[in-house]
């Protein structure tokens, strides 16, 4: 229905210029660095794919990848069902907006403040640490405790996103759908499966994309809890990369960054394919 109109490019030009400068140009720079051995930025040597070879043959990379994948799997399997359940629960309340506002609060906390808040909470004198100590549980920085704390903290941080988008999807279902289901005597499970789930599928796809990428590349929050420890037990992909940047091994860091970018791009591409196919069949 819209006209084919290449003068529209003039309107897009300012945005494209900004994105070119702050996103495309740095990306090309990383790509270039990733093929070089860099001592200083002035003295660098072309080494082709050597960094990539080193990364994909290193057990350290696969271990971090495994930890990040496991973290994403845990986070998604907790937050998505829980978020949908809360959204369904809110449908029947009198002031859903108030609950949604409360759930949005963690989304507006600066990311590097969140670990501090949770560490204070579980510390022996904290609001959560005190009752936990009373029942004989003591938060220690063991691998299991660190993982549990990061997963809980991440759920606190992002549950609101899942609920808000699911709730928006549910709100778009016309009331007659429910009435028809009632007349047919459909069970609660059938209503969810055949009416609600298809209607929130679009919103859920966005939730899955955003939550996957953000959890897979979790950095600031995880780092501040235990700096990737104990003994690397919470060293996720981004923490590895951050370490290399801080260690000034630019070539290797660039190859690592490109590898992560390729993973993200693949996920985005799959998301776009699925979304376009669904829109075409709708």
């Amino acid at each position, binding site marked *: 229905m*819209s*006209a*084919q*109109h*290449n*003068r*529209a*490019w003039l309107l*897009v030009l*300012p*945005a494209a210029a*900004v*994105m070119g400068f*702050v*996103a*495309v*140009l*740095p990306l090309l*720079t*990383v790509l270039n*660095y990733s093929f070089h051995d860099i001592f200083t*930025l002035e003295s660098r040597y072309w080494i082709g794919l050597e960094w990539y070879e080193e990364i994909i043959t290193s057990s350290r990379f696969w271990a971090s990848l495994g930890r990040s994948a496991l973290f994403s799997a845990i986070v998604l399997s907790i937050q998505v069902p829980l978020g949908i359940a*809360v959204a369904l*629960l809110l449908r*029947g*309340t009198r002031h859903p907006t108030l*609950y*949604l*506002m409360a*759930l949005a*609060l963690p*989304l*507006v*906390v*600066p990311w*590097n*403040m969140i670990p*501090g*808040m949770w560490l*204070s*909470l579980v510390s022996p004198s904290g*609001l959560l640490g005190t009752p936990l100590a009373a029942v004989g549980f003591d938060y220690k920085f063991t691998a299991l405790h660190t993982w549990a704390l990061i997963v809980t903290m991440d759920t606190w941080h992002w549950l609101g996103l899942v609920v*808000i*988008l699911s709730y*928006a999807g549910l709100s778009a279902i016309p009331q007659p759908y429910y009435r028809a289901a009632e007349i047919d005597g459909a069970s609660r499970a059938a209503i969810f499966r055949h009416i609600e789930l298809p209607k929130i599928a679009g919103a859920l796809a*966005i939730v899955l994309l955003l939550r996957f990428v*953000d959890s897979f*590349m979790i*950095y600031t929050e995880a780092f501040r809890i235990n700096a990737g420890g104990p003994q690397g037990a919470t060293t996720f992909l*981004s923490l590895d*990369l951050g370490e290399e*940047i801080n260690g000034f091994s630019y070539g290797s860091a*660039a190859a690592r*960054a490109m590898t*992560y*970018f390729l993973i*993200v791009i693949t996920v*985005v591409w799959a*998301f*776009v394919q699925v979304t376009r196919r669904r829109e075409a069949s709708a």
Partner: protein
Amino acid sequence: MSRAPRMLALAALLLFIALPLVQTVVLSFTATLPLDGVEPGQFTLLNYANIFQSPALVASIGNSFLYVSLNVALCLAAGLPAAYAFSRYRFTGDKHLLFAMLAFRVTPPVVLSLPIFILFSKLGLVNSPVGIALVHCVFNLPVAIWILESFISAVPHEFDETAFLDGQSLPGFFFSKLIPAIAPGIGVAAFFCFIFSWVEVVFARILTGTGGKPITMAINALFSFRTDIGLVMAMTVVSLLPGVLMIVFVRRHIARGFVIRT
């Protein structure tokens, strides 16, 4: 679900959300180190008073507001014409542009942080609010374009055509007709750009190594051998206020902040 279990579940949910926030507020009103005449553990307002005794902390509030406002202005100025183009026209490469924007919207900042730092160092954009305002466009410009586009698409085409038939130029139409018509959308886009820029820390950290520190980095700098946690928490509470205010303003549109176009 019947009434009682539902209320119980919602109460548990609110408790979960509130706990870390309550902890933060409680600590911000507690003396965690011996302060002037106040024993550790006691109620005090000194943490908040101490914020204003520290020039670094006061300056950081100004720095944060400066680059976040610059970013919002930049995203709206570049985003509005682009959003109009995506809403009204199809053009060569539009799908590829949308894909690129989606890719950069979700690219983790840590991936781009190294070249951004090197590039911006050469251009003298480190330790300056302009640098952070620019780099936050990586994720905020797509968000602004998508939000504005959804509001523009809700305006019928006839609205534009009538204006053009009256002989109005495109810029004239933007300022006198379109912007007033989608004013709520501009507000929503501005709020989301504001808050996403406000909470971001990876870019903000690498670009403010030695100066122009935002609130988040000023708080980081407070950590030392003998950290005044009370002061940290008071500053954290201050850093939360703009976000809380934003939630109140966009409460009917919160879902739009996470819109994605393919």
